[in-house]
């Protein structure tokens, strides 16, 4: 497994130029010819946040300090997960015409989508910290540890992307099933409610959901100013690795079949 990861990294280096061209293309397509351009990608999560804040503050926000940041943390991480995996899912089919006629590693299309989603997330992250500052939460060096869950989530997303892109080539209804799945996942990710109404044991059950684990890491660092315990770190890493390896195995087993369906 380690060897194949190494091999893939080597291949990625070889295709660096292609990779940067693909990421560039994603960005140009997204921001070209729209007047608001880059601003759009920031505006959409902000509007979502605004609506949620208006609706939910009354219900859930009364007992929660910095409720807006609490909400924003959840939204930020969940949107990253959702955008990246959705992008990854469509990556192969969107480039079907290229894949059909040029011999090129197909997963590069998927990973380039993941990276563009990550850059997009980075832009929203800037706004997030702006909100953190406005809300009067002091910045600390602890914030630097946020790189860890972001990196884990990126790997996690790539794993999910491998699985979804492989499934989507064969089964076209996966996109609708996945939409329902993400909707349900959002409700169990404690984005707009807090979990402390539940007893401690039930609270731990939430950690079965990988996305919740990443959200919880964010909140712990930003809202409580505390770096999570070791087990939380291992959990984040474990989810990422399990998903990546599962994804790679499924993808590798099926990737030569794609041509028969595209």
């Amino acid at each position, binding site marked *: 497994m380690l060897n194949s990861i190494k091999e893939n990294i080597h291949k990625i280096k070889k*295709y660096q*130029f*292609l990779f940067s*061209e*693909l990421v*560039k*293309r994603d960005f*140009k*397509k997204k921001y*070209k*010819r729209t007047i608001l351009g880059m601003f759009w990608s920031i505006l959409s999560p902000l509007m979502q946040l605004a609506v949620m804040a208006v609706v939910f503050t009354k219900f859930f926000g009364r007992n929660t300090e910095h409720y807006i940041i609490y909400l924003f943390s959840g939204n930020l991480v969940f949107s990253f997960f959702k955008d990246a995996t959705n992008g990854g899912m469509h990556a192969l089919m969107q*480039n079907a*015409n*290229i*894949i*059909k*006629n*040029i*011999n*090129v590693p197909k997963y590069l299309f998927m990973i380039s989508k993941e990276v563009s989603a990550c850059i997009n997330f980075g832009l929203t992250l800037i706004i997030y910290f702006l909100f953190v500052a406005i809300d009067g939460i002091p910045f600390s060096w602890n914030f630097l540890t946020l790189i860890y869950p972001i990196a884990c989530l990126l790997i996690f997303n790539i794993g999910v992307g491998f699985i979804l892109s492989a*499934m989507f080539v*064969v*089964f*076209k*209804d*996966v996109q609708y*099933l996945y939409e329902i799945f993400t909707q349900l996942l959002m409700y169990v990710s404690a984005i707009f409610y807090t979990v402390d109404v539940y007893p401690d044991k039930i609270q731990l059950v939430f950690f079965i959901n990988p996305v919740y684990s990443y959200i919880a890491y964010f909140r712990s660092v930003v809202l409580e100013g505390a770096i999570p315990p070791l087990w939380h770190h291992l959990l984040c890493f474990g989810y990422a690795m399990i998903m990546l390896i599962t994804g790679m195995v499924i993808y590798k087993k099926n990737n*030569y079949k794609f*041509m*028969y*369906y595209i």
Partner: protein
Amino acid sequence: MKKIELNDISVSYITGDFSTTGLKDVIIQKLKRTYEKKEFMALNGITFSLEQGELLGIIGTNGAGKSTLCKVISGIMRPTKGTMSVKGSIASLLELGTGFDPDLTVKENTFLRGALLGYTKEFMNKTYDSIIDFAELKEFENRKFSHLSSGMKSRLAFSIACLVNPEILILDEVLSVGDGAFRKKSEAKMLEVIQGGATTILVSHSLAQIRRMATKVLWIEKGKQIDFGETEEICDKYEEFLKKK
């Protein structure tokens, strides 16, 4: 030296409702045990080999599997059965003009395509001007790709793919690109590559062209190999076959 060797190569597609329905239906069908796979042999037992510098013409009626065979040899598609060895760098020109991004400019598309074909950034910076000049699209370089005519698109695709001198060249119905003047130019460029010692595979419906250029001919029909061998002999047989149809 044998450059290309194919041994009993077969490709089968899975057909049926499979790809049109989806995951839900497949699960239900599996539960009801009514699930079945239908197979379609796009290629069935293709065997031939080519020496360096030979030019193989592939003939056959529409849907014979010519394009699928080109994809197998280019490494885009993996055969379901059989073994093959292809030695050397490959340039394959299949379905020219597809796979470009309509929203990007001509220049951006050129770089993207170059990257897809495995060229380096330095190489693209160096050769970009000659690509654009060869395609005669200098005045269009900052226009949206979708503004080009289909002939122009093919011209650009041809120019990008042909600038390197590959050891193996695969041409699927592409020697009729663009208008008269460009066709002449592209044929000349093609001949230059072929005469440089490249092993070439040419799919064409023009028997005259095959007779003129090919050293060997492969005739396939409905995925099956009908014949492989000397050009004149097989072309005659094929002509007979077409007349009887």
